[in-house]
């Protein structure tokens, strides 16, 4: 074992009821140093090809990042990964909060969960000790109750409880995992995988100090203190703290890139009611944080009027405000807060849930769904009560909710007609609330993202459009030299995209939040490198970290190729190639020709086959993972 990691993984075989420990040596950890990289490696090594995502052969990996748990702002995250029941491909979702740090304090780098428990179970981890416990009495119960019961049973009020609610139990294909009731591994249906394994919860408590693991604890600690001070001194982190992610709504609306009514328009007439000022006035109660993070961008909300919303579940982020708001044609923040609370209570991904509701609304307006399917609900754009009720129906699989719980892609195939045109997804994963027609690099990311449409696979074009901007300057140490217009889709854009995708992937591997490192926020590239050096003692550079990120992306890509994915899956919904109907970019659509040409350029830059999108053996060799080429017969 080296510095910065424990060198051991907890293996949990739910079928056999067995727990064991597996070592990771220094060489392996250097190649896959936590989070996304370690998870992708473990998935490929443990999941057989063509495994049923909801069957016992699927494997759920939970892996904290290399820096997770260090006293270093935004280094809070851990990855949940498995074959996705929503996409059939590489499934991955990161969460911040406290659970990842606690797992690291307990002395584990990751958990690998295999098989399926015969009866509902939960897992208890207290430092080295781990046990599978009967969880039948927890099944069907609300996460708030489950957290209290589990903490009582393990005799520790401070135990961190990771769990699924009704959505995960009912295997809603976009079910999330929550911990502390307010942090979520939201995307790609990891909650459904947990539900399919009859695993209700994982309680973790650790007593080790993560800083003691570091090669140079003093340096890491000093760096952490320096960054904590910088939060208020840097415009981008200051903004996140003061306004939170809901601070995005007004500007995106003004720019014509606020997804509205299922991505038909880029501006919403009710946007003024969805701004951060409205949020503060109507629902906000407090700011919250993740482990050791000075940014404090999380929100807590309460509503005591028509919709009763408890502060226990955390407040809606921008994605949720726009998803249940403008994208559903709704300007009622209280209803949005209620939908957010229900997604927390039932552990549903707010992005996929809201997008699926918007899809259903468009289907309803086109007669593909009728009131007889919705239990009498008029599921139209702008109907806030119907939107809130639709979330309930999905979690409980009632009426049309049973079909919608399969995800918009599957639902569209059953509904027929124009429904497929209304399903805004890539590879089955619904689009986040960022409009590619105004920032085409985001569209490139949606298309090639191995997990499906993910807004965090790269950095958004406007941040890199002006060479004088703080964000552009922050990206220069990565080798970004050309500032490019947000709507330019070109080989130059693909060059920038490839670098930034690797940087984002490295962040997911290190356990850093997207709101930490430059170019998005306040932590400079050199400080990220310094933190990795202090934690591990490795003589790394920014280029080495980019390589780590690229390696992780290639492993995820190999996973998909093994499951039969190809270039045809790296695409975008047709609607994005049509003109926007309203807002500052009305009439603007993406060019399919430019998109396909840039995709070919990107594959070439990444060393991937332009026809199949598979990494070449040579590229995998260069990345030190030739073994992965054998899995897909790469030439």
């Amino acid at each position, binding site marked *: 074992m080296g510095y910065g990691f424990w060198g051991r993984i907890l293996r949990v075989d739910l079928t056999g009821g067995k727990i064991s420990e597996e070592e990771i040596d220094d060489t392996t950890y250097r190649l896959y140093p936590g989070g996304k990289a370690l998870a992708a490696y473990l998935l490929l090594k443990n999941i057989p090809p063509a495994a049923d995502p909801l069957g016992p052969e699927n494997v759920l990996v939970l892996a904290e990042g290399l820096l997770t748990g260090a006293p270093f702002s935004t280094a809070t995250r851990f990855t949940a990964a498995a074959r996705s029941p929503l996409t059939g491909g590489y499934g991955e979702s990161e969460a911040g909060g406290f659970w990842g740090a606690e797992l690291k304090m307990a002395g584990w780098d990751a958990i690998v969960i295999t098989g399926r428990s015969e009866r509902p179970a939960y897992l208890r981890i207290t430092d080295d000790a781990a046990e599978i416990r009967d969880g039948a009495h927890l099944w069907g119960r609300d996460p708030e109750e489950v957290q209290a019961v589990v903490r009582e049973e393990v005799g520790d009020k401070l135990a961190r409880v990771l769990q699924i609610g009704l959505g995960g139990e009912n295997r809603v294909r976009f079910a999330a995992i929550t911990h502390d009731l307010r942090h979520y591994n939201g995307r790609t249906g990891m909650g459904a995988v947990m539900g399919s394994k009859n695993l209700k919860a994982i309680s973790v408590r650790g007593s080790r100090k993560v800083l003691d693991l570091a090669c140079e604890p003093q340096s890491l600690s000093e760096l952490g203190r320096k960054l904590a001070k910088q939060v208020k001194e840097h415009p981008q982190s200051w903004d996140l703290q003061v306004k939170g992610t809901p601070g995005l709504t007004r*500007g*995106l609306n003004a*720019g014509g890139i606020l997804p509205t009514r299922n991505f038909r328009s880029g501006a919403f007439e009710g946007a003024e009611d969805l701004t951060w000022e409205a949020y503060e006035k109507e629902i906000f109660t407090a700011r919250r944080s993740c482990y050791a993070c000075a940014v404090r961008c999380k929100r807590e909300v309460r509503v005591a009027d028509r919709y009763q919303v408890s502060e226990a579940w955390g407040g809606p982020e921008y994605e949720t405000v726009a998803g249940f708001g403008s994208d559903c044609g709704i300007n009622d923040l209280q209803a949005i807060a209620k939908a957010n609370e229900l997604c927390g209570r039932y552990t549903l991904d707010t992005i996929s849930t809201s997008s699926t509701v918007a899809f259903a609304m468009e289907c309803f307006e086109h007669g593909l769904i009728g009131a007889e399917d919705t239990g009498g609900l008029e599921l139209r754009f702008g109907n806030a009560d119907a939107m809130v009720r639709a979330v309930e129906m999905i979690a409980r699989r009632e009426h049309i909710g049973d079909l919608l719980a399969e995800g918009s892609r599957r639902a569209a195939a059953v509904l027929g007609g124009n429904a497929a045109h209304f399903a805004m997804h890539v590879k089955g994963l619904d689009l986040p609330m960022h409009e590619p027609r105004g920032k085409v690099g985001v569209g490139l990311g949606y298309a090639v993202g191995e997990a499906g449409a993910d807004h965090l696979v790269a950095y*958004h074009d406007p941040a890199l*459009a002006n060479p004088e901007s703080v964000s552009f300057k922050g990206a220069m140490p990565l080798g970004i030299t050309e500032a490019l217009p947000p709507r330019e889709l070109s080989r130059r854009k693909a060059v920038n995209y490839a670098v930034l995708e690797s940087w984002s992937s490295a962040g997911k591997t290190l356990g850093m939040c997207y709101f930490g490192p430059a170019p998005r926020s306040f932590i400079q590239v050199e400080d990220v490198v310094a933190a990795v050096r202090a934690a591990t003692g490795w003589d790394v550079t920014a280029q080495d970290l980019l390589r780590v990120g690229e390696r992780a992306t290639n492993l995820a890509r190999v996973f998909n190729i093994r499951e039969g994915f190809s270039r045809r899956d790296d695409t975008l919904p047709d609607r994005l190639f049509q003109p926007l109907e309203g807002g*500052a970019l009305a009439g603007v659509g993406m060019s399919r020709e430019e998109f396909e040409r840039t995709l070919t350029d990107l594959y070439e830059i990444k060393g991937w086959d332009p026809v199949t999108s598979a990494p070449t053996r040579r590229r995998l060799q260069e990345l030190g993972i030739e073994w992965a080429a054998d899995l897909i017969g790469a030439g």
Partner: protein
Amino acid sequence: MRVHLGGHLSWYDPGKRAWLELDARTVLEAGASQDRQSGPLTPAGVARHLGLPRGEIALVAVNGRAVDPDAVQLTPDDRVEFYPPIGGGESPSE
């Protein structure tokens, strides 16, 4: 004139304000006295008056419409909004 500093642009205001009222004549006079500006008042002139770094302004809207910040003449009743690269978009240029 009502001015909005969107996203992290309000960090550059000494009072960290997101909304402020400006007197158009004051802005013009201040610009002229510093030999920075003469003639009609534009959003770019307002940005200079407020000390907003040019590199941080990605989108400017006047009365809800995205505009070219150098090409639009403002009137005292206008509402001017400035947005940074993150959480904005891009201004049209002429």
